[in-house]
């Protein structure tokens, strides 16, 4: 079953045209897709379009068969009515590259507030789950701390916990391990693997090729706003066909 697809998406900024130039991506239930590619290739922008933070210039966006956006007759993109978008928003979660934690909430409140206030779930249940999540992330002793009191890696882990606490159908990660040490990267990997086993669908932008190889079923290599190559992660990373992909991955061996 297709959980998410974005088709022929184009996006320009006033100061930078063709950040995304007609790329498409479709994700099946339970799949873990890793997106790799050089800096500035449009990976974050793709996630932002997918999560409705940025409007596409043209293209189609579909979640579980429900259209969030499509090309109107005049070629301009049309977004679904607010109500539909609201329903769609409950289907995905996003972990930001720069965390965006709420500075005025404690760690625990950052993680529990949305499940309680948005999903209207039982307080006790949410707290219990959140504490388990924080423990998994090695943050048990930071539950009452405020974001400004955390190290970079700690902030990143809180932001992952916050997204996971929402139990979305599909989770987007923008460089979830960029501020983590290898030890924690390993632990996040476990978390993501566990999620994968529970059939959580995930799209992960990452610079850690090894991480991508291990955690993802499929790897997508992006450059300059288009997909250059995609396929089974072992295959793409070990035996890329495209020259650009080869050049990119070659640098891996510093």
């Amino acid at each position, binding site marked *: 079953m297709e959980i998410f697809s974005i088709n022929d998406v184009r996006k320009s900024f006033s100061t930078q045209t063709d950040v995304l130039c007609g790329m498409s991506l479709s994700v099946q239930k339970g799949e873990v897709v890793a997106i790799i590619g050089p800096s500035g290739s449009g990976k974050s922008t793709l996630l932002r379009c997918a999560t409705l933070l940025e409007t596409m210039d043209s293209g189609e966006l579909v979640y579980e068969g429900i259209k969030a956006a499509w090309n109107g007759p005049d070629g301009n993109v049309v977004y679904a009515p607010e109500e539909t978008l609201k329903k769609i928003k*409950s289907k995905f979660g996003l972990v930001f590259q720069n965390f965006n*934690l709420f500075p005025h909430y404690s760690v625990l409140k950052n993680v529990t507030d949305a499940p309680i206030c948005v999903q209207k779930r039982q307080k006790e249940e949410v707290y219990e789950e959140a504490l388990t999540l924080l423990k998994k992330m090695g943050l048990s002793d930071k539950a009452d701390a*405020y974001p400004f009191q955390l190290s970079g890696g700690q902030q990143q882990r809180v932001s992952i916990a916050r997204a996971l606490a929402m139990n979305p159908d599909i989770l987007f990660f923008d460089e979830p391990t960029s501020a983590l040490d290898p030890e924690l990267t390993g632990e996040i990997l476990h978390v993501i693997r566990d999620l994968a086993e529970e059939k959580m669908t995930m799209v992960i932008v990452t610079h850690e090729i090894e991480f991508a190889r291990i955690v993802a079923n499929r790897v997508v290599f992006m450059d300059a706003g288009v997909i250059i190559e995609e396929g089974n992660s072992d295959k793409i990373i070990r035996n890329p066909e495209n020259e650009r992909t080869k050049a990119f991955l070659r640098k891996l061996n510093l």
Partner: protein
Amino acid sequence: MSLGLMLNKLSEGMATSVLIFVLTLVFSLPLGLFVALMRMNRHKVLQNLMRIYISIMRGTPLMLQLLVVYFGPYYIFGIKLSPDYRFWAVIIAFVINYAAYFAEIYRGGIASVPSGQYEAAKVLGYSSSQTFLKIIFPQMVKRIIPPITNEVITLIKDTSLAFAVAVTEMFTVAKALASAEKTMTAYIFAGVFYYVFNLIVAFVMENIEKRLNYYRL
């Protein structure tokens, strides 16, 4: 006149001043928020309506607004004015005037919350009102305490304008006593009253500011 009697007279005026002050804040602080949100709304019509409202409220003297609110019903609709209306006219005029000033302060505060906060809230599914009330508003409050204090302190002094429609508050009483007695005593009391009132307001606001220091931006 005995000092006791003078203080008695003054305290009546004080009661009026404090009442105007409290009622104005109670209504204009939320109203201002509402205006700020409409001012920042995407709908151009609403936006421009609020822009005009703010422009008129800030652009004309409060005293004139008082006169219009009080005498307007008579001059425009021919309604006979009841004496009770004097006080409520003052409250209405103060509330709509101060709401405009507060609205602009809120707008500045809201605009300085980084966009990442909206994005995080949006992705987590917060409705726009939840986003505002739970995420943006508390962070905005931290930023706007000093300018809000400025306006609140201006309000204390503006209460004396109520006399334009013959509501005798503190300052008017003091002035009348001073000219009847040909001494400054009443003015000194009035000055002390204003100053203490101000100190209290400044103290309360500084405390709120300190309380909000539990987190950093």
